[in-house]
C-alpha cells in the first residue's frame, strides 16, 4: 500500500515536472516571460528530486541493508555537487558562460553514463532491447562527458590551440568502431555466447574507456571558436542519453525531458550553424587547412588612426550612433564602460542603438547577454535584420572589438571564407570608428577592407581603455554640454 502510494506520488510529481519543463522552455521564447519560465522548470525539478527519495520504499531485500546509507549518500551527493555548481554558476564571469555551460553539460552526460554503468555491471537489463538502449545511452553519455570537458578546457584556455594528428579522421573512425565492437561483445557475452578473451567486467570498462577516448579525439581538433556549436551538439547528445536511460529506468519524465532537450538542442545547433553560414559537419570534421592568405594588394586606401578623445567628442555632437560590439568587447570586459559612455551620449540627446550580429562574439547571443549584464535595456538592442537598413541614415557607427561581422568581403569576395554571411552595414554610416588594439585579425583571419574606407577611422587600444578616454573627453566638455 505504502509502496503504491509512493509510486502514485512519484508518477504524479514527475508528470507535473515534465509538463513544467516544456512549459518553462516555451516561456523562454521572449525576454519578458523567460524568467518565469526557468522558475517553473526549476520548481518542477526540485519537486521531482525530492519525491525521488520515495524510491527508497521500493528497495528490494538485497538493497535493504544499504538503504539508510544510500539515502544519506544521495543527499550528500546532492548537496555537494549542487552546492559547488550553484556557487560556480553564481560567481562565474559572464564572459565565461560558454565554458560553464560545457562543464554542466558534461556532468549531465557523465551522470547518464554512470547510470548505464550501474545497469551494466549489475546486469540488470531485462531484454535485449533494454541492453542495447543502455549501451547506446552509455556511449552517447560518455562521449558527451569527455567531449564537453575538452570543450570546457579549451574555452577556459587550459588547452592551447587545436591539436591534430595526421589521419585524425581515420583514427577517430577506428576508435569508434572499436567501441561499437566492444559493445557488441558485451551483448554477446550477456546473451550467453562463448567469449574466450575477456570477462564481462573488463569488457564494460573497456567500452567506457573507448567511448571516453573517442569523445576526446572528436573534440581536440576543433578550433576554440567553433566550440559553442560543439557544446550545443553535446547538449543535445546529453539530452538523448538521458532520454535513453529514462527508458531503461522506466522513468517517463527522464524520457520526455531528455528527448525534448535532444530535439531542441539539435534545432538550436542548426540555427547557430546557419547564422554562421556553415554546415554542422563542416564545423565538426573539416576544420583543417591553413588560414587563408590574402594578397595585401587587394585592399586600396590606408588606415587613418584617430584619438579616442576626438572620436568620443564627435559622437557627443552626432545625432544618431549605432554601436557594433564584437568579440573584443568581451575580451576587454568593457561592457560596463560602454554603457556608461552610452548613457553620457543619451544624456546629451544622442540617439544610440546597439546592432548585434547573430555570431558576434564566440557564442550565439553572447553579446546580448553581455550588454544585458551591463544593464542595457533590451529594447535598445537590435538584431541584424531589424537594424541593417538604419545604418545609412546614421551619423556614426562605432565598431568596438568587432571585425568579421562588419567585413564587406562577405558581400563581394567569393574566395573569402565568410563569403555569403550576412554582415552589418556599418560601412554605410556617415562616419565609422573602429576600436581595436592593433592589426589583429578577426576569427576568420582575413583582412577587413572596411578599415581602409574613406569614412573610417581607427581608434587603437584596448576597448576598456579607449572607452575610459572617451568618457573623460565627453565629461570634460563640462556639465552644460552633458545636460
Amino acid at each position, binding site marked *: 500500500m505504502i509502496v503504491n502510494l509512493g509510486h502514485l506520488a512519484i508518477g504524479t510529481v514527475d508528470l507535473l515536472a515534465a509538463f513544467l519543463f516544456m512549459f518553462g*522552455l516555451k516561456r523562454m521564447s521572449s525576454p519578458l516571460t523567460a524568467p518565469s519560465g526557468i522558475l517553473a522548470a526549476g520548481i518542477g525539478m526540485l519537486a521531482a528530486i525530492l519525491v525521488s527519495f520515495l524510491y527508497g520504499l521500493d528497495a528490494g531485500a538485497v538493497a535493504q541493508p544499504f538503504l539508510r546509507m544510500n539515502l544519506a549518500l544521495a543527499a550528500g551527493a546532492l548537496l555537494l555537487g549542487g552546492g559547488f555548481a550553484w556557487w560556480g554558476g553564481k560567481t562565474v564571469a559572464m564572459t565565461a558562460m560558454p565554458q560553464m555551460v560545457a562543464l554542466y553539460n558534461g556532468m549531465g552526460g557523465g551522470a547518464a553514463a554512470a547510470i548505464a554503468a550501474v545497469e551494466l555491471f549489475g546486469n540488470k537489463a531485462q531484454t535485449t532491447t533494454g541492453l542495447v538502449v543502455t549501451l547506446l545511452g552509455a556511449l552517447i553519455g560518455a562521449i558527451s562527458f569527455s567531449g564537453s570537458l575538452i570543450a570546457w578546457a579549451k574555452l577556459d584556455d587550459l588547452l592551447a590551440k587545436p591539436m591534430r594528428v595526421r589521419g585524425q579522421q581515420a583514427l577517430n573512425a577506428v576508435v569508434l568502431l572499436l567501441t561499437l565492437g566492444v559493445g557488441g561483445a558485451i551483448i554477446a557475452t550477456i546473451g550467453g555466447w562463448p567469449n574466450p578473451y575477456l570477462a564481462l567486467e573488463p569488457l564494460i570498462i573497456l567500452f567506457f574507456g573507448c567511448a571516453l577516448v573517442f569523445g576526446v579525439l572528436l573534440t581536440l581538433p576543433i578550433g576554440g571558436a567553433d566550440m559553442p556549436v560543439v557544446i550545443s551538439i553535446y547538449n543535445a547528445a546529453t539530452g538523448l542519453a538521458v*532520454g535513453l536511460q529514462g527508458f531503461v529506468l522506466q522513468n517517463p519524465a527522464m524520457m520526455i525531458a531528455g528527448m*525534448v532537450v535532444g530535439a531542441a538542442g539539435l534545432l538550436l545547433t542548426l540555427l547557430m550553424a546557419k547564422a554562421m553560414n556553415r554546415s554542422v559537419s563542416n564545423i565538426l570534421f573539416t576544420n583543417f587547412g591553413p588560414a587563408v592568405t590574402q594578397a595585401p594588394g587587394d585592399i586600396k586606401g590606408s588606415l587613418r588612426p584617430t584619438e579616442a578623445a576626438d572620436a568620443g567628442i564627435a559622437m557627443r555632437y552626432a545625432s544618431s550612433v549605432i554601436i557594433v560590439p564584437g568579440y573584443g568587447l568581451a575580451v576587454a570586459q568593457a561592457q560596463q564602460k560602454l554603457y556608461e559612455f552610452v548613457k553620457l551620449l543619451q544624456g546629451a540627446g544622442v540617439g544610440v542603438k546597439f546592432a548585434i550580429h547573430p555570431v558576434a562574439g564566440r557564442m550565439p547571443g553572447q553579446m546580448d547577454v553581455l550588454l544585458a549584464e551591463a544593464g542595457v535595456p533590451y529594447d535598445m538592442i537590435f538584431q541584424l535584420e531589424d537594424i541593417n537598413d538604419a545604418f545609412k541614415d546614421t551619423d556614426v557607427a562605432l565598431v568596438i572589438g568587432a571585425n568579421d561581422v562588419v567585413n564587406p568581403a562577405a558581400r563581394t569576395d567569393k574566395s573569402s571564407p565568410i563569403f555569403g554571411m550576412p554582415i552589418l552595414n556599418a560601412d554605410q554610416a556617415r562616419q565609422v570608428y573602429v576600436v581595436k588594439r592593433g592589426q589583429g585579425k578577426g576569427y576568420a583571419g582575413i583582412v577587413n577592407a572596411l578599415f581602409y574606407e574613406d569614412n573610417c577611422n581607427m581608434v587603437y587600444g584596448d576597448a576598456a581603455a579607449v572607452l575610459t578616454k572617451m568618457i573623460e573627453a565627453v565629461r570634460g566638455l563640462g556639465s552644460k554640454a552633458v545636460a
Partner: protein
Amino acid sequence: MNFTITITGFVALYLFMLAAFAGWVIIGHVPAILHTPLMSGSNFVHGIVVVGGISVLIGASTIPEQAIGFAAVLLGAGNVAGGYAVTERMLAMFQPSRPAGEPAKTGAVQPLRAGSSGERT
C-alpha cells in the same frame, strides 16, 4: 490500483516522438537574443538525470554500485544546480527600458520589442 509504470518498446517510441516534436516546435520561435540562456536552460532540463541517479543509488547493493551511483548523483546535481544558476542569472539581466529606472531619454531610439524580426526600422 497499481501505479507502477511499465513502458514497452512501442510506447517508448511514441513518447520519444512526441517529446522530440514538442521540443522542436517549442524552440522554433526563440529569438536570437535568447540563444545563450536557452542553451543553458535546456542544459538545465536534462539535469533531470539526477533523479535517475538517485533511484540507482538507492537501489545499490554493492560498494562499486554505491560508488558509481554516488558519482551519478554528484554529477547530475552539478548539472541541475549549475544550469539553473547561470540561466537564472542571465535571464534576470534582460531588462526593458522603462522598469530599469533610466531617464528614458533615448532620443531617436524607437523602442522595439526585442527579437521581433520582420520589422525594419
